[in-house]
């Protein structure tokens, strides 16, 4: 069901670092495309530098970083630093499975990535539609005039 909530919005998607989990980013890409976005799918094992390069050259409105293998904490700081250095300021989300142990409290994890500089930090099993809704809202908040009004949202 293709809608146009994210018409003309450019989103970079990929799994960071040594992460090889592909299913989540595949579904995310689909959902974003179904919502009308232009998706730049970087796939698995994407280095922080590759993310930065794509964000800059593709003039991305948003960057979706996925990490499932527990190593987000190792690679994400370089990504955030890289974007800052490049003067890029896309909306920056991270999700997947961000801590190593099943025993780590979620609040601690969210806190850590929020402090790192991510605009939103998603717990495991976040539905793609959730991210689409959030992105639309954040873009509106940033004043992206292209986006349809709140009332016309139909995700």
């Amino acid at each position, binding site marked *: 069901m293709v809608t146009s909530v994210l018409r003309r919005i450019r989103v970079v998607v990929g799994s960071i670092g*040594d*992460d*090889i*989990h*592909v*299913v989540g980013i*595949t*579904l995310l890409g*689909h959902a974003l495309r179904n919502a009308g976005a232009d998706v730049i799918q970087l*796939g*698995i*094992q994407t280095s922080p530098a590759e993310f930065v390069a794509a964000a800059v050259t593709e003039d991305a409105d948003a960057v979706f970083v996925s990490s499932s*293998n*527990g*190593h987000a*904490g*190792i690679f994400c700081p370089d990504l955030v630093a890289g974007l800052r250095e490049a003067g890029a300021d896309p909306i920056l989300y991270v999700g997947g*499975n961000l*801590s*190593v*142990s*099943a*025993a*780590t409290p979620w609040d601690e994890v969210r806190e850590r990535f929020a402090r790192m500089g991510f605009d939103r930090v998603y717990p*495991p*099993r976040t539905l793609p539609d959730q991210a689409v809704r959030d992105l639309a809202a954040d873009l509106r908040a940033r004043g992206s005039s292209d986006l349809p009004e709140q009332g016309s949202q139909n995700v």
Partner: protein
Amino acid sequence: MSDQVSNEMLDLDELRAQRASVFHRQLSREPYDLDEAWDFARSNAERCGMAATLARAKSTGDTVAIPRAGVAHWDAQLELMRTLSAAGAGVVPITVDSLTRSLKFEDAAKALAQSTPDRSVLNGYPLLAHGVERTRELISSVDRPVIVRANAIDLRLVAETAFASGATGFVSGPMYATLEYSKLGSLEVSIPNWQYIFRLMGEYAAHGVPIVEDAIGFAQSGTCSVPSLMHVGVVLDALIMAGQGVKHIVPYQMLQGHVAQDVAGCLAVGTLTDEYLAKLGFGDVRTYVASSDWNGAFPSRQPDAYGLLAANVLACAIARTPVNYVKTIEEGIGVPTAAANAASIRFTRYLTHLISRQAASLISPEVQFELELNLMEARAILDAVLDMGDGDPVRGSISALAVGVLDIPFSPNVHVRGNVLPVRDADGAVRFLDRGALPLPAAALRIEAERLASRRARSGSGELSYQDVIDDLSFLEFEEPTLPEGGDPHS
């Protein structure tokens, strides 16, 4: 070594040269002294060797339960292995972290330094950072054979270190590690890396240290796949292993929650591996089939996860596989606590014990049906692949992959066509929705289509689509109580 990659056995001198170069490049040091390593490994294997454990299980009809487990800190890893041994694991694992797998040995060492026994910054045991001495100590401190678990296109130093440290089992091979686990790697590049490892295992075997190697093949991970296609990958991996002198191979069957199809898969993959090994002249290789718990997304609720494990154990117990790779009730959450891992082993062993003695009484006609379908499809693809390599499985695989005669769904690898789509039928058995260019016999295609008709009938449009494939990702989730009377159960 011939210049073109093939299944020919690597020349011993060539292996020596490669060892020197890879140690030098990746670790700036001389290769391990093999004579010294064999001495240690031999007495260690005699004390506690995986091949002997599996051979005993195969002959008595038992099932060896093997967990997955790895944490960064040495003390925590030992504690973990001991806990799992006490819970009934027949072989205990050292899962290697993924920084090490990507050859970032120094980054892994840094992350190790930040880890404590209570908190692991890594998703596994940084094998190179710990090194041979410490890992020998670790392996010597447990009363079970140890398998080192890792997947990547270049694990030569991981394997070197594992074997020298006393691991008597290792995981994976080129098909799985390349096509399911890597974005850019090609078989041309990865097969030689793996052949190095297999050749090394062959040398260990020749010097009295039998090492078991898991052939995972296309154990489609993350989504479901048609069993016959998974078997093709297993058999190809096994042939490449045998080509370098590996003598103990574990053909893998990933369980998918449809019990009859899963049982048939366990039986089929053993039959096929033995059949093609013999056909290519590797009749002396011993095989031990492993069932492996569902490799895709797990439900996060603990009782649901127990339920999923139950369906898997059932298939394993009915098929009486000598090995069972066990996931945990926290798989859907994160790297499991030792307690959750132990509970999962314990559960698996209890249920296996109860069901395996009644296995014969639970073989249904449907198992036989799935088995025959499996064999028919897998043989057709395998024969076509081997034909394309003039009988050589390495050349065959490379050529077949290029034209889609080998193809798998949902691969993260850029060299895979990805035209194949699997979908579950109304009962949950996995069928081909799109076979891409796989050379399936007409009879098989007819059966596949018939079996899908039931689901087609249920779906609104009468046609199945990519959306059904996506829906299948949550086949093993059961979100809401679907009570007969409906209504909101949480009110």
